[in-house]
């Protein structure tokens, strides 16, 4: 990784990413086409973190729903979305808030939707786990673990064979999804149909409260992906620079070759699985994990907390759940 501007945070992806899959990475030029400003990425991560922390308070006060937060995992979606074009499509699972913010979904309608308000993105009908914002090509979320993989494969099939554009589809999922039949059926379909699909695994080594020894008989999730003949890469998912660099490479691979690619991002979930579920991890373990927090030691940009508070207050004051206009 090269820092071009004396440490102010501009970098290029001109890189030595370890190629874990079969074949050779050397044939694919990995030089950067897009300059990425790390401080901008960190700002987006803080946006997610502060928003989720504030929503957490609302949930604790009984004003929020059974939300799923991405605390500790923000670097992955922010890094990946930075490598996408605006016209690329995103499909995701049940932990949606960070993904929506990273894809550029406007905050006020997002927050209003999360709070079940008429002003929400989907009029309060979708809630957290069925969000969609077609203008931002944030296509849909499928709450059931694994479902988003075959759906994303179908979407990518349509991009390649029906719309015939050079856009790509990115789908997020967790490591736990790889124990589900839908993940395997989706991987098989993506590989056999050769679709432009970037699969991003947010590997937090947890399935709710369940540890990998109960669902993962292999060392890395990537091994499973490689069994379908899909190229893979493993990256530190708590390092936003590394993620964005890897994602640039991966997105370019998918865009140029019109083939699926699997990016495994190791990360740490610093919060509960969801509001309605306790956490079995000990304080010591959490303290150890907090050392890997991607925002550790950094300060939130000034004014961001106030901006988010304004949005939250406006959403709280808006009328309750309702139907989308015109329906």
């Amino acid at each position, binding site marked *: 990784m090269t820092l071009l501007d004396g440490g102010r945070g501009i970098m290029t992806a001109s890189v030595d990413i370890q190629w874990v899959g079969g074949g050779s990475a050397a044939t694919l030029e990995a030089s950067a086409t897009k300059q990425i400003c790390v401080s901008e990425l960190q700002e987006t991560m803080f946006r997610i973190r502060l928003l989720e922390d504030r929503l957490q308070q609302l949930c604790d006060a009984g004003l929020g729903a059974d939300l799923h937060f991405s605390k500790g995992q923000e670097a992955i979606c922010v890094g990946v979305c930075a490598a996408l074009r605006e016209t690329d499509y995103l499909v995701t699972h049940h932990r949606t808030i960070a993904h929506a913010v990273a894809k550029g979904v406007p905050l006020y309608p997002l927050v209003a939707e999360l709070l079940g308000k008429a002003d929400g993105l989907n009029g309060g009908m979708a809630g957290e786990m069925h969000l969609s914002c077609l203008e931002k090509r944030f296509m*849909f979320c499928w709450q059931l673990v694994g479902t988003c993989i*075959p759906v994303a494969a*179908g979407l990518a*099939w*349509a991009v390649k064979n*029906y719309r015939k554009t050079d856009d790509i589809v990115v789908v997020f999922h967790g490591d736990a999804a790889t124990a589900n039949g839908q993940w395997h*059926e989706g991987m*098989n379909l993506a590989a056999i149909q050769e679709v432009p699909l970037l699969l991003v695994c947010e590997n937090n080594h947890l399935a709710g409260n369940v540890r990998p020894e109960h669902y993962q008989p292999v060392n890395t999730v990537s091994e499973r992906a490689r069994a379908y003949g899909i190229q893979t890469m493993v990256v530190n998912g708590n390092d936003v620079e590394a993620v964005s660099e890897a994602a640039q490479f991966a997105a370019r691979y998918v865009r140029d070759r019109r083939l699926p690619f699997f990016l495994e991002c190791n990360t740490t979930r610093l919060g509960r699985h969801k509001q309605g579920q306790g956490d079995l991890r000990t304080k010591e373990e959490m303290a150890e994990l907090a050392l890997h927090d991607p925002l550790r030691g950094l300060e939130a940009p000034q004014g961001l907390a106030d901006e988010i508070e304004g949005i939250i207050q406006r959403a709280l004051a808006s009328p309750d759940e309702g139907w*989308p206009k015109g329906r």
Partner: protein
Amino acid sequence: MQLLEQQKKSPFNRNHAIRDAIGKAIYDQMGLDQSIHIFGEGAQVKVHYDAPDIERDFADRVHTLPISEDGNANFCVGASLLSIKPIYDLITADFLYRAMDSICNTAAKQNFLREDKSTIVIRSEFLTGGPTTGQRPEALFTHIPGLNVVVPSTPRDAYGLMLTALMTPGVTLFFEDRMIEDGEFNEKVGCVQEAIPFGQSRLCSMGKRGTTTILTYGLMRQVVQQALQPYEFNHDYYADEYPMLCDIIDLRCLYPIDWAFIKKMLERTGKLLIVEPDVIYGGVGAEIAATIAEEMPHVRVKRLGAPRATIPASKSLHDRMLPTREAIIDAIGRW
């Protein structure tokens, strides 16, 4: 072509009149609508044998997928997000259980917010072949919001309803009843080929005031008509067979149901006999009977259908589980 003839002569491929009509509807609509694509396990092989016109003209829009029913249905939902209209051919209705999650949780739910609703047609057929190749899961799907459920019983209805399914935003489960014999009481695709709207039943024959209204669908429509054939042309009010002149209504759509017409006909007769080809317990007839009991308490209701038992492999044993012509005549005669 010779192979095709052989295939059609095979005992495993009899009763193809409805299938041909469905194929014709899909072919006609594919010519008008470029966004219709066929997906399915062995889809290319299936059109080769069943719909050579589609293979000839639209081979590039027929896609063979692996034997992964649930994943395939989700895949079709994904494709539909970009305005493709997938016809997903699951082949056998029993396989729908494999895809319950993707149909009920994914396909049925992705339209509820969208302005631009996806059109997805999920095709399958009822067979006779044993415990897991002779089931009729249609009633389960009528329970799920977001799904239309269609069971045509004649080639003409199959043609018209398939056109509607392909032109209607939403998810349609389209069943082909392979137990319906080609031949008698099987209205052909006529010269006027038009779409038949969902939620419109068909009056197959009209009885006399005061007799019975028979509500049926799928295979049982043909059986009921066969049972009543001997009485069809007797219009003598004083003859013994007079009570056999019944209204016969083919539901065609199990969701939405043609309530207005059914109620109008029941005003005339006051007696409702539901004859269904599926398990009575928790079936479509139960919903109709309950609704009529609530809204028209003066109407008397009877149901005929299959017991809640595992389907036997032998065709003759399977036939014994379904209402016979004699049972139907008996039910009409004794109120």
